């Protein structure tokens, strides 16, 4: 990212220069930068806008050549098709969405219940080889899913968890526990241990001190962590497609992916399903935007 030229006075990266200096110094360049940002933003957002547009387009306009950016016929049919089967009744997609809600919700709950106490214990107590344990925990998260899925598949086949929601919930929980521990350990570290010490001086046990004093302070952190875990499970595809097959177990990602593959693909329906699928994620992600850096690096980077 070469910054082109050296200009007269300061239009430095420090954002709080006086407007006067900016105006005198690099008005042209500042304008250029804004233009560049706008172009980049348009490029980054165009596919999303195009998806939304396609989801409300008349079928004829979806396949129009050249593509219609404006002036297409608006229809909500695709959204209806997402939820309602052609013959009436619930569509397979809506069942898949419901499965996704159940699987993502329960696995997140499980990961939170297991991960938060562990994070607290790692933060507060001197555990043998703590650093090694924590690194081991995080590294399980980096295993290639395709590699893990083969033995998991065989294991599940032995114990009858293939094509069951419980199977998916367990693997997603295992997937989210490392993240929950790392993320929550950061939040627990921020709560002074002195609170618990004080409570214990008052006669509470360590467990009670944790439950009554530390845990309430952790609630915002737990919420943020759970939201990320929810997003990860909601978006997960590899385990879902290999470990489930029937319509009443299958979650939304493989169900949406299943919409293509025939001779013709109803792209309007794909777009509408994708919008319905992605919307909650975007809303949730917006809610936890303060913790995004920690969230997307699995709790490893905190700022």
């Amino acid at each position, binding site marked *: *990212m070469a*910054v082109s030229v*050296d*200009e007269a006075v300061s*239009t*430095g*990266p*420090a954002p709080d220069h006086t407007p006067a200096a900016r105006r005198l110094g690099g008005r042209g360049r500042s304008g250029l930068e804004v233009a560049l940002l706008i172009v*980049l933003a348009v490029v*980054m*957002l165009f596919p*999303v806008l*195009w998806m939304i547009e396609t989801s409300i387009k008349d079928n004829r306009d979806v*396949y*129009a050549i*050249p593509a219609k950016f404006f002036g297409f016929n608006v229809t909500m049919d695709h959204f209806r098709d997402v939820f309602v089967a052609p013959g009436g009744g619930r569509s397979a997609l809506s069942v898949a969405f419901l499965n996704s809600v159940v699987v993502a919700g329960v696995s997140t709950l499980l990961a939170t219940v*297991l991960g938060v106490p*562990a994070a607290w*214990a790692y933060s507060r*107590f001197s555990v043998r080889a703590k*650093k090694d*344990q924590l690194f081991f*925990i*995080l*590294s*399980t998260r980096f*295993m*290639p*899913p*395709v*590699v893990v899925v*083969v*033995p*998991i*598949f*065989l294991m599940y086949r032995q114990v009858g968890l293939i094509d069951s929601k419980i199977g998916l919930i367990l693997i997603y*929980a*295992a997937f989210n*526990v490392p993240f929950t521990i790392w993320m929550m350990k950061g939040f627990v570290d921020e709560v002074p241990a002195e609170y618990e010490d004080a409570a*214990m001086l008052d006669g509470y*046990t*360590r*467990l009670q001190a944790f439950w009554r004093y530390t845990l309430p302070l952790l609630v915002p952190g737990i919420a943020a962590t759970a939201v990320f875990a929810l997003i990860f499970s909601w*978006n997960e595809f*590899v385990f879902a*497609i*290999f470990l489930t097959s029937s319509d009443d177990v299958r979650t939304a*990602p493989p169900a*949406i*992916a299943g919409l*293509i593959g025939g001779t013709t693909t109803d*792209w309007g329906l*794909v*777009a509408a399903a994708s919008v319905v699928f992605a919307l909650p*994620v975007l809303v949730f992600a917006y809610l936890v*935007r303060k913790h*995004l850096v920690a969230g*997307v690096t699995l709790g*490893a*980077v905190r700022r």
Partner: protein
Amino acid sequence: MSDAVPLTTDHPGQVASATPPAPGRSRRLSDRGLAVAFISPALLLLLAMSVFPLLWALYLSFTDYSATRGGPANFVGFGNYTAILASAQVHQRALTTLIYVVGAVVLQTVLGFGIAYLISRRTRGRGALTTLFLVPMMLSPVVVGLFWRFMLDAQFGVVNSMLGSLGLGQVEWLTRQRTALLSLIVVDTWQWTPFIMLIALAGLTAVPKYLYEAASIDRASEWFRFRTITLPLVWPLLLIAVMFRGIEAFRLFDLVYILTSGGPGVSTETLSFHVYKVAFLGFNTGTASAYGILMVLVVIVLTQLYLRYLNKLKEG
């Protein structure tokens, strides 16, 4: 290991009434028990769902077991490993993966850092801009893959349509050997540039302003300031992001599966995708396990590098 202490620990009154040295001792003991009771459930889940499957895969990798044929697994020693390491097919997939990982990560880093730099220089609308740029990252790879497949469609895809109205020729993005891998890199870049941007932005906004002020008093050139202040201070964090993306790209599967299914031919088959084919289409579970273990070894090395570096950064 488990002492089952925490649930039966003394009541508040007892602790308060005990003599000073005694509670210290019993508390330490119960702390130990509490730590074990709190940590072991999570570790047990990980052992059952991550470590045990890998150990099983390790065992299978020394056999000729096939998941469909069933029957007993015969021990074949390192046969699977030598077969994979010697296979020209695997070498080609490794090359594809390398091109893909390097191409995508380099593009993402340059673009992501560029966008972050531009955003960090704005005073107004930073939050809104950041939020907008982050949208692709939060989408599921399934949605991203499907949607780009539609946009890159040779006949009615919007990309070709736009190229057409610019007077340029149509490109068969996903069905030509050359362009398919390029498309994969572009789509991955589209999705993950925001990741690098987000972390670079965190680094950029953390650079103390007085450094820039000092530099501008010295009338240092902008390039000089960028090179001597911005880059050295942001670089460690950026490297974390790059390594993270590198690992993620190496183990990527879903985007390939949705976008190209490895095709045309085998031009976009990454190692992950090849493992899948060997395991689920070829049903050579033993070979696939060995293949997977080798991939895991690569991931472990990469992860160790990443974690070591992360650790150094946190302590330093």
